[in-house]
């Protein structure tokens, strides 16, 4: 039995977000929404995390950081794009320094829409990410034999 559904830990990285989705990610961990009742913790450290929540579209500098963080996460891991910017670039997609959504550089598993994404949507996204984590764990385990 896999336990990822019971305790998914989040790492949050702000790629080029405007803060709106960031605060909503933080808010979803605090009293009114309290993600921790599902065992979800914001770890702040890639080595402990299961889910990488990215807010904001990516630019050339944040791609490097994002890739570093993703590489340092242990398998199985899931990427969650939070907010419109992370999905497509939102109003900033025409900016010269914006590469577009996170899926341009890393395989995104869960898209959480909204500008800014609402906490309810984020919770929903995390729960969805849990399912994917379990699936990925099964595949990863099979792959290792």
């Amino acid at each position, binding site marked *: 039995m896999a336990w990822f559904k019971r305790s998914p830990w989040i790492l949050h990285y702000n790629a080029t977000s405007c803060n709106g989705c960031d605060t909503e990610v933080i808010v979803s961990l605090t009293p009114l929404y309290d993600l921790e009742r599902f065992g979800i913790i914001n770890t702040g450290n890639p080595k402990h995390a299961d889910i990488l929540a990215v807010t904001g579209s990516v630019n*050339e500098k944040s791609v490097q950081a994002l890739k570093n963080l993703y590489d340092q996460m242990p398998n199985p891991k899931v990427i969650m794009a939070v907010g419109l910017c992370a999905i497509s670039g939102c109003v900033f997609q025409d900016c*010269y320094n914006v590469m577009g959504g996170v899926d341009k550089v890393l395989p995104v598993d869960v898209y959480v829409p909204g500008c800014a994404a609402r906490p309810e949507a984020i919770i929903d996204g995390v729960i969805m990410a849990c399912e994917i984590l379990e699936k990925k764990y099964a595949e990863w385990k099979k792959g290792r034999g």
Partner: protein
Amino acid sequence: MGEPQEIVPLGKNELMGVVARLYAEGYRLVQIGCNTLLAGYELNYSFDKDYRFKNLRITIAPGEEVPSISAIYQNSFLYENEIHDLFGIVVTNISVDYSGTLYRTSIKTPFSVDNVKLPEAPKQKKTEGP
């Protein structure tokens, strides 16, 4: 309605003297901004004292160097580095010189004359007198 804003056009060479005088008078540096013109740049040095806003403006051609005022106003180094990185204007003698690494953008000097497409002014409909 709005606050009165004084914009003082200056020659590049006068800049340091005027800035030093403003410093002595107790003005604080509010910002340094830069505008791209069709062929050249317009630098705005904004100062404030007791809510009185004063803006110095110098105009330079592309490739022209600008002296740094960071010897007078220490906090100007960030603005000057920004202008250097975004507009490609060489600012000399910045106290903390990032030499082009403050903004590491995917295209170099995105606000330079070559990159910026200024909107055309609309056909002047004569609004004033005959």
